[in-house]
């Protein structure tokens, strides 16, 4: 073996670039492109957590400081009743948004903060821009996309005792052979709940999740964590369900309410580190374009609140009262946002600080989405969604 071949054989095997570095680089490059298009200049592209990167960040902070001081000076000057042009503003803001430079003794309203333009401002939660995205380059702690469940649908209910119970159905997946009636691992006798109209109750998990095999699919009923198995509310709910050629009819008894219902949709999640009261907190935001509160609210115990002026629901963690989650809508996009040691106003501030974007922009910034759906293994025609009525 000659030296060339020896070197060839010693080719080091390089593990893939760490995903977080790969993603950060991608975001940096996206930011360069964005800045280039808006003529803001290109930032120095460096990887996070490197000596060079830190130096660049310090420089950027210094630049931001200069711009910030200029901006504050402009902001302070524009509201003043004066005929003197703001001294620093002219160098930091576009001419079209600057204060008048001709003598003017008439009290003027403050100029708009955005230059007058005919370009429409993207609205969040719309068909064109269904997602909210972090502004610019912000390292994310979490980034996942879960595609919709084929033929899946969810229903989120509020029981008379104000507990939240959710139901999920999946179409026509070949059910496991039903287990013979008997006892579960805990020795609790498993009753068969009206098998002729609902299906066979196969198993329960921790007393809170009931799996029901229906003729052309599966049905999962999820009760409040820690509930007693077969508590009256569950029995009442199961007894209210009827199947009619695939439709899952739920005739809600008196005192029950619907929080949300609808088909499964794609879920876009990111964890955004933010500074709240001088602490770094990671806020997790999941968005469901054209989604519903039933899919957003899985596993929570929800109470009504107002979030950004809109009706929403809040859930507090049973083990950690400082951890809260909120579900609601921004336009037609359902969302679930949560964090530990925050209050609702903090979460509202985070949402307000995001910018509208579409799925293409998500892909450009964060990478391709996973495959659209699992292989279609349904064994019979698509099952209609829930049909809910109140008694």
């Amino acid at each position, binding site marked *: *073996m*000659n*030296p*060339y071949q*020896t*070197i*060839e*054989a*010693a*080719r*080091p*095997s*390089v*593990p*893939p*670039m*760490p995903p977080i*570095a*790969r993603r950060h*680089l*991608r975001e*940096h*490059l*996206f930011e*360069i*492109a*964005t800045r*280039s*298009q808006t003529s803001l200049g*290109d930032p120095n*592209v*460096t*990887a996070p957590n*490197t000596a*060079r*990167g830190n130096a660049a960040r310090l420089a950027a902070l210094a630049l931001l400081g200069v711009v910030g001081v200029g901006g504050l000076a402009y902001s302070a000057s524009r509201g003043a009743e004066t005929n003197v042009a703001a001294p620093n503003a002219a160098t930091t803001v576009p001419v079209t948004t600057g204060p008048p430079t001709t003598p003017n003794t008439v009290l003027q309203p403050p100029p708009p903060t955005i230059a007058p333009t005919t370009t429409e401002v993207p609205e969040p939660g719309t068909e064109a821009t269904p997602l909210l995205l972090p502004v610019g380059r912000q390292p994310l702690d979490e980034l996942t996309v879960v595609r919709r469940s084929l033929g899946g649908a969810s229903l989120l209910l509020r029981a008379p005792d104000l507990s939240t119970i959710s139901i999920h159905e999946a179409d026509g997946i070949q059910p496991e052979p039903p287990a013979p009636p008997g006892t579960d691992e805990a020795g609790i006798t498993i009753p068969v709940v009206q098998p002729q109209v609902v299906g066979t109750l196969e198993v329960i998990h921790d007393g809170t999740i009931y799996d029901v095999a229906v003729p052309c699919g599966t049905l999962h009923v999820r009760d409040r964590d820690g509930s007693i198995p077969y508590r009256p509310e569950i029995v009442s709910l199961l007894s209210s369900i009827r199947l009619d050629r695939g439709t899952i009819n739920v005739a809600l008894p008196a005192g029950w309410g619907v929080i949300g219902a609808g088909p499964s949709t794609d879920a876009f999640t990111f964890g955004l580190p933010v500074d709240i009261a001088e602490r770094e907190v990671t806020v997790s935001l999941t968005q469901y374009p054209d989604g519903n509160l039933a899919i957003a609210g899985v596993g929570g115990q929800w109470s009504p609140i107002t979030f950004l002026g809109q009706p929403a629901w809040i859930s507090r963690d049973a083990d950690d009262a400082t951890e809260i989650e909120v579900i609601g809508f921004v336009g037609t996009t359902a969302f679930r946002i949560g964090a530990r040691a925050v209050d609702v106003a903090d979460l509202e501030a985070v949402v307000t600080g995001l910018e509208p974007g579409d799925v*293409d922009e998500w*892909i*450009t910034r964060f*990478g*391709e989405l996973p495959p659209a759906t699992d292989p279609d293994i349904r064994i019979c025609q698509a099952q209609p969604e829930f049909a809910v009525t109140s008694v």
Partner: protein
Amino acid sequence: MTLTGPAAARLYDDHVDAIYGYIARRIGPDLAVDVVGDVFEQALKAHERRPAKGTDRGWLMAIATALLRRHGTTECARLETWSTESADALHGATDPLLANPASGRPTATAMAAAAELDPVDRDLLFLTAWEHCSPGEAGEATGLAAAVVRSRLGNIRKELKRLVAHRPADPELDG
């Protein structure tokens, strides 16, 4: 005009792993991420000046190769490390790429010889031996014609043999 949008995303997604691997193999993973960032920044900015002929990969390799010249000292130090550390020590090295099963005296000597090559010859060596570039691609990455690359590769083989033959024996590696 900077390349933007899906085209930029596709360029990055399609080639980042290959470019990262090339750079990490030559100067180590610690520096590689920064250099990869520089490669793609320049690629996006200069896409309009990209030669009409050639591939995206070859063009990115050209930018990477040019940027790697700034790290020649680091690269040579790594290659020398290959030669001065025993195989056992290499397996415990901080740089995981140096903990190579192929480490040992013949490899160490060959690596040290590579460190003594002319920088362009070293580029050609690693582009062809490690990145499996064709003479055309290696030429694209170094600004040489394919025929010139073939000729230089022949000379590189001879030069490596000569350098290896003239290297003093390492008593530690020879046991």
